[in-house]
């Protein structure tokens, strides 16, 4: 009797017996599931159906029970026990996960690769039970560029390549130029990007009013360096707006903008933009705009002036309390009512403004978290050096606070990229919108699954890369305090 109990309870005395028996049972169970799912062979078909279904689990469980020997002295066995086989419960879960993976591999593989059709360019080639990647291949241009004319698509490609190249300047900059990088990325790079999209992708006066604003902002920032710190606040409250009005109504006239148009490039209206490139354009601009706006409101929320504080709190809580889709609704149906009748703002610009304001509220909250996390001593030390409000924030507080909130900001930017498909509300079709359009095409009915899987893979790669990059950034700028 005793020996029987001993036999069932694994210990180190008959190590080899247990290991051989246990791994044999375990391998049998895995083999059974493997053969069953890959070659549809049922080794245990002679048993009642539910027993045959559960048998691998039971066998594997007993096998894992047998090899669960603590401190066996065999490296791999100990590793196995420690990681997937700590107790009965974990053993069952591990087995279930292994079986689920083995079971789900054949259908996934056959759908994605084996039974899928890649060749040809009509629907007729898609007869197999697998995916129809031909559909993606045929519609690729539409998914990437929307309704942008085929002959003009090199403009988008060229712009993106140029922007990526110019964006990577930071990696090659020598130490001598490192100190100008912030200026480059905050002022010059966005300006270049804007000019590319304004003149090159659009080829026409799409961002009419926008351009005045950008020029006014850039000019006032450059002039701002020469204004004494004492008056900077008033300066930035008044001058940009005044400059904008002056530019728009007194100095520049439409003819000047017309002069700036590149001849020989066809004008492509924003309604025709679309696909993945539109996702990038919108994410890029919203990212540029929402950051300074958010920073301003974060500072406003912690300001000592009660009225500014209340306005900031109101702004932040309002945008955070409403869903983006209603904000876009507002920009589509309600916002035109708020403007003079002859005043027309392109719907892409309206969408960009709406998304930027919306995300700015989230950025503001994230930055506020960073500002609050800084110890009071930092503020007091800066003040004791005789720094004013702006100097203190720009040189002491913000660099430290922003460093602290890199993960939060990255999450907000990720949310921004994931929110871009919502612009279908204002009638713009980026990649998901184009998919929905393509799937209703009478020639290509019935390939919704392929399209969504394709878009999901693209978005997953973009978002995953962004989150990994932000993690690296966080590690790089981590300072021990």
């Amino acid at each position, binding site marked *: 009797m005793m020996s029987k109990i001993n036999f069932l309870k694994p210990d180190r005395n008959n190590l080899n017996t247990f290991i051989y028996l246990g791994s044999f049972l375990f391998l049998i169970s895995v083999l059974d599931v493997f053969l069953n799912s890959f070659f549809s062979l049922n080794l245990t078909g002679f048993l009642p159906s539910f027993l045959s279904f559960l048998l691998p689990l039971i066998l594997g469980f007993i096998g894992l029970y047998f090899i669960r020997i603590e401190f066996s002295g065999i490296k791999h066995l100990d590793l196995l026990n420690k990681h997937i086989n700590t107790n009965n419960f974990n053993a069952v879960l591990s087995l279930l996960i292994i079986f689920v993976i083995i079971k789900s591999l054949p259908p996934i593989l056959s759908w994605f690769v084996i039974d899928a059709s890649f060749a040809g360019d009509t629907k007729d080639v898609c007869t197999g039970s697998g995916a129809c990647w031909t559909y993606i291949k045929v519609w690729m241009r539409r998914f990437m560029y929307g309704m942008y004319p085929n002959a003009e698509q090199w403009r988008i490609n060229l712009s993106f390549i140029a922007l990526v190249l110019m964006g990577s300047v930071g990696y090659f900059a020598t130490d001598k130029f490192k100190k100008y990088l912030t200026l480059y990325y905050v002022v010059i790079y966005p300006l270049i990007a804007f000019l590319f999209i304004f003149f090159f992708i659009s080829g026409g006066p799409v961002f009419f009013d926008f351009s005045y604003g950008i020029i006014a902002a850039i000019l006032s920032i450059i002039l701002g360096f020469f204004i004494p710190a004492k008056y900077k606040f008033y300066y930035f409250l008044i001058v940009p707006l005044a400059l904008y009005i002056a530019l728009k109504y007194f100095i520049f006239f439409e003819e000047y903008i017309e002069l700036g148009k590149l001849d020989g490039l066809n004008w492509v209206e924003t309604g025709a933009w679309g696909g993945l490139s539109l996702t990038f354009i919108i994410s890029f601009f919203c990212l540029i705009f929402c950051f300074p706006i958010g920073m301003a409101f974060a500072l406003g929320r912690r300001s000592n002036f009660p009225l500014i504080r209340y*306005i900031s709190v109101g702004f932040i809580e309002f945008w955070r309390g409403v869903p983006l889709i209603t904000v876009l609704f507002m920009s589509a149906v309600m916002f035109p009512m708020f403007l003079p009748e002859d005043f027309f703002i392109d719907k892409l610009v309206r969408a960009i403004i709406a998304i930027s304001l919306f995300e700015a509220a989230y950025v503001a909250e994230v930055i506020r978290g960073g500002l609050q996390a800084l110890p009071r001593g930092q503020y007091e030390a800066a003040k004791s050096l005789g720094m004013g409000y702006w100097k203190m924030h720009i040189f002491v507080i913000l660099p430290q606070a922003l460093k602290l909130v890199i993960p939060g900001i990255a999450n907000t930017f990720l949310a921004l990229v994931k929110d871009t498909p919502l612009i279908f509300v204002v009638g713009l079709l980026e990649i998901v919108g184009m998919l*929905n359009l393509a799937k209703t095409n009478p020639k290509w009915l019935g390939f919704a699954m392929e399209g969504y899987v394709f878009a999901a893979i693209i978005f997953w790669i973009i978002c995953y890369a962004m989150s990994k990059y932000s993690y690296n950034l966080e590690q790089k700028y981590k300072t021990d305090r």
Partner: protein
Amino acid sequence: MNFKLKDIIPQLITVTAVVLVFGFFTYNAQINMENRGIDFGYGFLSQESSFDVQFSLIEYDGSHSYFRAYLVGLLNTILVSVIGIIIATILGVIVGVARLSPNYLINKFAAFYVEFFRNIPLLLQIFFWYFAALRALPLPQDAEAIFGVFFLTIKGLYVPAFIWQNFSVFFYSIVAAIITIIIIRIHAKRVQENQGKQIPVFLISIGLIFILPLLSFLIGGVGISFEVPVLKQLATTSFIYEGGVSLPPELIALTLSLSLYTATFIAECVRAGIQGVGKGQKEAAASIGLTPNQVLKLVIMPQALRIIIPPTTNQYLNLTKNSSLAAAIAYPDLVLVFAGTALMQTGKAIEIVSITMFTYLTLSISISLLMNWYNKKIAIQEK
């Protein structure tokens, strides 16, 4: 008197700017509305709506008012949010705990789930479930019954309906059970603080919540029966299930994607919360002789909850706001019914969009107030 010009001027400029912008907008809005012959007002809410909504929790058809349509949309939004929050919380807690499992496979499986679902836009997931996955379901006549009573078809999920007799008695018995449990909890806490005795509150609560409703069945004359959906032929190729409750595919796709997506974020909150409790706490609790269960219940969870609740509240709010994506697959929520159909019919853009935004604002603020209250209750009381 601490009156300084330096303090006043920036505020004055900011306020003037805000007032100017708003004034500009209102002025233009007035002129535009005059030009288009639209008058501003909320009187349309009591007019007859004359459109139909395909899924509604309260009785509604075209003869009801716009306000009723608004209620229909609001209730549908709340329905999706509540179901989504419940499923997302359960799933999120399980996945969050699984991410801390010492088991390598479970750990990686949970990590895979989190990384997979949270890096794909929610709208894309909703489209995927609605247009791709649920369209692959069988037609009503081909559907196989699950457990003999559920029917999952391309036209939705059909579940048996409960038919209650004396439902109020059953309801009161549950209320009574909950009240008794609360009283016993307060009493048990007082006993423990005064005499150091522990009363098995959990067992008593479980017992009460089962026994009282059971008594209502035995004594109070409560009865329950099921109405199982039955297949019915409308035309030669058109079938439908009658009886029972039918959940439209829009609702299923929406709750599925919302909860799968939000669960990933909740899982991360849970993981961060449990990891945030120092290892020393666990060891200290074990060293004074608490059992593993007590360690979890009395030491780890109360501290972890403090870290978990604020970000999780944010996720609940996000889920509620994200439920507005329902408009994209034509689930009749607030945005689709009110900001969509009603807006098209009345053309009252400003009124309707502002009501919709205000509603979401109220929902968000009420959830966050509720959670703030709870958060304050469990926060560390420093003296």
